[in-house]
């Protein structure tokens, strides 16, 4: 038996879904969090032993879809015949929500209305006559509070849904049979439907506080959406998040954790003193050292996720979206693109998927390919490593990394706008401002733990294996003999990585070890740290001091043989090149077009390369008075890239012009 969860965006469907199935799908206090459908069995306690599968769907305002994810919902309920529908209705805006409800009731599938957020509507002193509503809709209506632990009405909802499954239900309002292509007729019918809904609401709902009255939260919103103050507040909030997680509480806890890891590693190394060097290398350096290096950054990532969860829960995201819209409009995006970017500071994959709520094709694809320029959680260890080793843990490195990410997003957007020509379409922006909510600490904590678990699993599997492979490849040469100390250049790893390294010479880091680390970064960005730990045989990578780096930070610097400028260039290279394969996969799903996908990857490679080149060359010029190695070849490479972009731009423009004129002709002919 399948029960679909349908309703307006941000009405509480996913929260209820999580409560009933025990899953923890992403929730957030803004419209457009759920972008795809999810299925899972409902816990037996609710279904009294029956096997019932819950299907969580993206929010929709109506059966006629406006955004891509709304069509997922309408297609599902229409084509896949769920046995029952639980229509989650936000009790605080009955007048809008019931429109969709009446449409669902016409489908011939039994519907149970869950009047959710009842606690909020009660607090607002809005009285809803549940029995009368149920009578008028001709279906059961159950008051629910899906965020409550107990007495939330969930069991009653499920009970009713299960009992009605497969039965018939008469719709209280049936749309007249009209030609759906006749716009005027459709409009007429929609109005009639709304009239019906208006009638019900008038009968059933009594409001103490009119929604058009100004409330405290409106004053707050007015400040937050102020073009100047609003943006400053946003910048301050994000800075606060980063500072707490990466400069204050995060490193504080990390120090402690890292102390333990280090002790453990020393112990292991000690135990293996009398073993063949290769064993010690793989176990102590590769596994404990490499994985330990990555795990040491876990507290930073955890705290960041906690803070982001709080931010996402309170309702601020929609306000940010509104206030950033004017700026984003200038580069051809919309305010909706800021949400993927904020999510992207955690992980790039949900960020790319969050782009689905952007209606305009070009905008959506542009956002998807640009959102990975903002450093994700996996890149935090890389930033922290280099900040510690080369810049004595200075805070500006991290700040610049994020700031530059945003700058690149804007520049990239401008580039895409220039190539694809934005002026053809007027893009309107409207976003619902959900009610402010005190963020749930419990939920944020759970979300943080989920993320921590994922991080550890990733470290214990992918990063572990990568480190071992790298360690092995570094320790043996092609004849499978163990490589002598100082002869690492003959190892398997060196021979594979060297060709790549040549390409990186103009960027200041043409060493095979660095090339290898960058390549492993595509499997997981944390691997950059892990691989570096392995290839440079750096055991005491992390220590109790400053941002995870030791006084041995200098050892690290010396071993890598990089100048500070080159190190910065290398850091930026890893941050702004294409993301890990998983994220590229997510991009692929979003682009739905090989052309766009390869453009995205191309753009990202070009960006990483160019930024590193500029930083290295100009930086060396400033600090040492001369240009770095390989200036000319690098410059040529970049000029070639620029020419390719111009060529592509010309072609795309011509194509668009053609398309647009055809479109115009068709419209004129119609």
């Amino acid at each position, binding site marked *: 038996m399948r029960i679909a969860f349908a309703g307006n965006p941000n009405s509480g469907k996913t929260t209820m879904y999580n409560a009933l199935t025990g899953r923890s799908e992403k929730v957030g206090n803004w419209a457009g969090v759920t972008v795809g459908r999810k299925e899972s069995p409902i816990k037996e306690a609710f279904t009294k032993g029956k096997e019932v599968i819950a299907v969580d769907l993206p929010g929709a305002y109506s059966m006629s879809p406006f955004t*891509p994810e709304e069509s997922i919902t309408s297609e599902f309920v229409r084509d896949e015949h769920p046995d029952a529908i639980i229509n989650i209705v936000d009790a605080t805006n009955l007048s809008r929500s019931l429109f969709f409800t009446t449409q669902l009731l016409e489908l011939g599938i039994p519907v149970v209305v869950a009047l959710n957020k009842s606690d909020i509507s009660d607090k607002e002193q809005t009285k809803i006559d549940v029995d009368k509503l149920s009578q008028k809709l001709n279906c059961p209506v159950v008051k629910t509070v899906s965020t409550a632990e107990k007495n939330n009405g969930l069991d009653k909802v499920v009970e009713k849904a299960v009992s009605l499954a497969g039965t018939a239900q008469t719709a209280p309002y049936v749309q007249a049979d009209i030609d759906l292509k006749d716009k005027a007729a459709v409009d007429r019918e929609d109005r009639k439907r709304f009239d019906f809904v208006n009638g019900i609401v008038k009968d059933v709902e009594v409001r103490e506080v009119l929604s058009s009255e100004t409330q405290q939260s409106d004053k707050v919103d007015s400040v937050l959406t102020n073009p100047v103050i609003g943006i400053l507040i946003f910048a301050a909030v994000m800075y606060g998040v980063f500072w707490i997680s990466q400069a204050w509480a995060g490193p504080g806890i990390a120090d402690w954790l890292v102390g333990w890891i280090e002790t453990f590693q020393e112990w292991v190394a000690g135990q293996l003193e009398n073993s063949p060097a290769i064993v010690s290398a793989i176990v102590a350096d590769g596994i404990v050292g490499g994985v330990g290096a990555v795990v040491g950054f876990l507290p930073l990532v955890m705290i960041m996720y906690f803070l982001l969860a709080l931010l996402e829960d309170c309702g601020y995201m929609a306000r940010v979206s509104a206030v950033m819209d004017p700026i984003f409009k200038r580069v051809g995006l919309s305010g909706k693109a800021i949400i993927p970017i904020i999510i992207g500071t955690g992980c790039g994959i949900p960020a790319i998927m969050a782009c689905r709520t952007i209606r305009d094709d070009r905008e959506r694809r542009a956002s998807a390919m640009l959102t990975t320029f903002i450093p994700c959680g996996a890149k935090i260890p890389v930033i922290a490593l280099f900040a510690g080793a080369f810049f004595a843990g200075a805070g500006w490195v991290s700040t610049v990394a994020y700031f530059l990410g945003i700058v690149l997003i804007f520049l990239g957007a401008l580039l895409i706008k220039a190539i694809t020509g934005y002026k053809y379409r007027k893009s309107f922006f409207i976003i619902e401002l959900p009610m402010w909510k005190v963020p749930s600490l419990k939920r944020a904590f759970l979300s943080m733990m989920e993320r921590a678990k994922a991080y550890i699993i990733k470290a214990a599997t992918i990063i572990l294996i990568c480190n071992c492979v790298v360690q092995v490849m570094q320790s043996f040469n092609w004849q499978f003999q163990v490589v002598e100390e100082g002869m690492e250049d003959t190892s398997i790893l060196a021979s594979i990585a060297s060709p790549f390294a040549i390409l990186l010479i103009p960027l200041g880091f043409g060493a095979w070890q660095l090339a290898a680390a960058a390549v492993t970064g595509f499997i997981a960005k944390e691997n950059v740290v892990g691989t570096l730990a392995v290839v440079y045989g750096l055991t005491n990578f992390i220590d109790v001091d400053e941002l995870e780096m030791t006084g041995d930070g200098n050892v690290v610097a010396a071993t890598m043989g990089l100048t500070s400028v080159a190190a910065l260039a290398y850091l930026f290279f890893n941050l702004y090149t294409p993301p890990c394969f998983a994220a590229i996969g997510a991009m692929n799903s979003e682009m*739905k077009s090989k052309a766009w996908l390869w453009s995205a990857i191309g753009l990202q490679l070009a960006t990483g390369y160019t930024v590193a080149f500029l930083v290295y060359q100009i930086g060396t010029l400033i600090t040492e008075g001369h240009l770095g190695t390989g200036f000319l070849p690098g410059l040529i490479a970049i000029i070639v890239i620029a020419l390719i972009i111009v060529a592509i731009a010309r072609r795309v423009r011509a194509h668009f012009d053609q398309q647009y004129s055809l479109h115009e002709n068709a419209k004129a002919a119609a």
Partner: protein
Amino acid sequence: MNIQTIIAVVITAVILLLAIRYIYREKKKGTKCIGCPFAGECTKYGHHTETENCHLPE
């Protein structure tokens, strides 16, 4: 080969095996990002996913 070496090798082998087995299982389930809590959202956009998740969670 002393006892420590043997223990180390055995433990390493076991960990690696578990890791590889985990990744293999996840790949079969279709999870794109190992350990990623949003694995459920990684469906191909606009395309009906098979109801392969219709088994009770282990």
